[in-house]
């Protein structure tokens, strides 16, 4: 029940003054905040702290997991039977396409080789279980149960059975953090399936996505499917991302406001497939022209030199 005396008597040793301690800790906090935000160079600190926190977090998540498990157990035979029937039915309906897929891929590969086009990359990856969503209310992230030990690296894309879920942003020894495509800072380069038009889709933060920088008269319709364009060198081409839900065309703005809903069960718990990193894209060609200011300066220098030589 003792308070802090602002002027402690000298014969009681009580460490540094509270104000000095406050300044010290506040400065450290601000320093690591700025370094983490600007330079992202504190990953080692984060990983080592995560080694301590991660087990506690997993233990704390077990009651919820047990409740889920029990609910699944009690759901009963009937629902399982129905789900099983539905799945069997779905399997049958997709069978004609799937059975010929292998042959089609082989044919596609052969044709591409004939046309001397680079072969399509095969998608490979590993399945990871979503452990929990991060508590941070400012972003949309989930933690999965595979990390550095399974060879996961930051930047790998993650998909589920329907489409793109997100991208691995931080890797810890035994877990990894996936930023969902609905996060405000996450952008995915996409392509409209119907007409091949390319754009970039951004997360809005409330579970929706926005197709930005499309001109007001762009050829986009409600219900259009967006798939990854593969131009970023991260996502392979052709994974479904979102479906256009609403379009607002306002002539006062130069861009249309196009909202989309993600195709994948982005906000659901379950399993995701973390795809292996792509082989790097060829280097971009160098920019064609130099900045005009530099060129002019160089010429002037050369002229001066010429004058000196004369």
């Amino acid at each position, binding site marked *: *029940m*003792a*308070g*802090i005396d*602002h002027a402690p008597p000298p014969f009681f040793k*009580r460490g540094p003054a*509270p104000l000095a*301690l*406050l300044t010290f*800790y*506040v400065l*450290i*906090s*601000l*320093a*690591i*905040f*700025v*370094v*983490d*935000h600007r330079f992202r160079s*504190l990953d080692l*600190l*984060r990983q080592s*702290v*995560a080694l*301590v*926190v991660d087990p*506690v*977090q997993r*233990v*704390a*998540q077990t*009651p*919820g997991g047990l409740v889920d498990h029990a609910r699944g157990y009690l759901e009963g035979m009937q629902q399982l039977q129905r789900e099983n029937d539905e799945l069997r039915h779905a399997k049958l309906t997709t069978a004609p396409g799937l059975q010929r897929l292998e042959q089609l891929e082989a044919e596609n590969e052969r044709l591409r080789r004939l046309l001397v086009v680079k072969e399509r990359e095969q998608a490979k990856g590993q399945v990871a279980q979503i452990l*929990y*969503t*991060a*508590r*941070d*209310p*400012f*972003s949309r*992230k989930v*933690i999965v149960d595979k990390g550095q030990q399974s060879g996961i690296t930051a930047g790998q894309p993650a998909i589920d059975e329907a489409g793109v879920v997100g991208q691995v942003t*931080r890797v810890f020894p035994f877990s990894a*953090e996936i930023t969902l495509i609905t996060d*405000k*800072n996450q952008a995915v380069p996409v392509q409209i399936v119907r007409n091949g038009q390319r754009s970039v889709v951004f997360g809005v*933060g409330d579970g929706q996505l926005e197709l930005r920088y499309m001109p007001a008269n762009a050829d986009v319709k409600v219900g259009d499917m967006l798939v990854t364009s593969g131009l970023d060198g991260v996502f392979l081409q052709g994974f479904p991302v979102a479906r256009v839900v609403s379009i607002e065309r306002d002539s006062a703005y130069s861009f249309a406001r196009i909202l989309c809903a993600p195709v994948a069960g982005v906000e659901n718990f379950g399993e995701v497939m973390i795809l292996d990193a792509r082989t790097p894209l060829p280097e971009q060609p160098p920019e064609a022209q130099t900045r005009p200011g530099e060129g002019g300066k160089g010429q002037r220098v050369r002229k001066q030199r010429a004058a000196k030589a004369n």
Partner: protein
Amino acid sequence: MQPHFSSSRILLPVRPWFIYFSLFAALALNFLPTAHWPGVPDWVALVLCFWSIRESRRVGMGWAFILGLLMDVADGSLLGQHCFAYVILTYLAASLSRRILWFPLAQQALQVLPLLLLAQIIQVAMRLAAGADFPGWSYFVGPFVATLLWFPLTFVLLLPQYRPVEQDPNRPI
């Protein structure tokens, strides 16, 4: 002499391990899946605030900083966000402890509310400065719930310090 100092009940000295245990329990409560529900308070901030008012010599800004770092990593937020808020909270709580403990419980809770709100506001301000979206007003419901929890929390955390009911009649005092 102190007519309104209702919290001045004589208590046994606190056991240090109980302080550390309660802080750890608060951390575990923050890790529960319920942390996503609107209105669930930040348990670490609440317990930290409690102990820095009661025992500011044992729980200081160093503890606040370490717990903040753990919360930052567990949340996946930017490092330093919780550290900063908790350190400020602990400092203010410790320097106001004499004044807060003077009041009865209800008024103590009223004085704790602005401290907890400040911790949330600091975090929102830091994240908004870093370019995040405003998370909605439900983010600020937590401190109000925490204020209501001040009564049961005080009872539970002081329980080990209450004088045993059966007293020895042969005691000299």
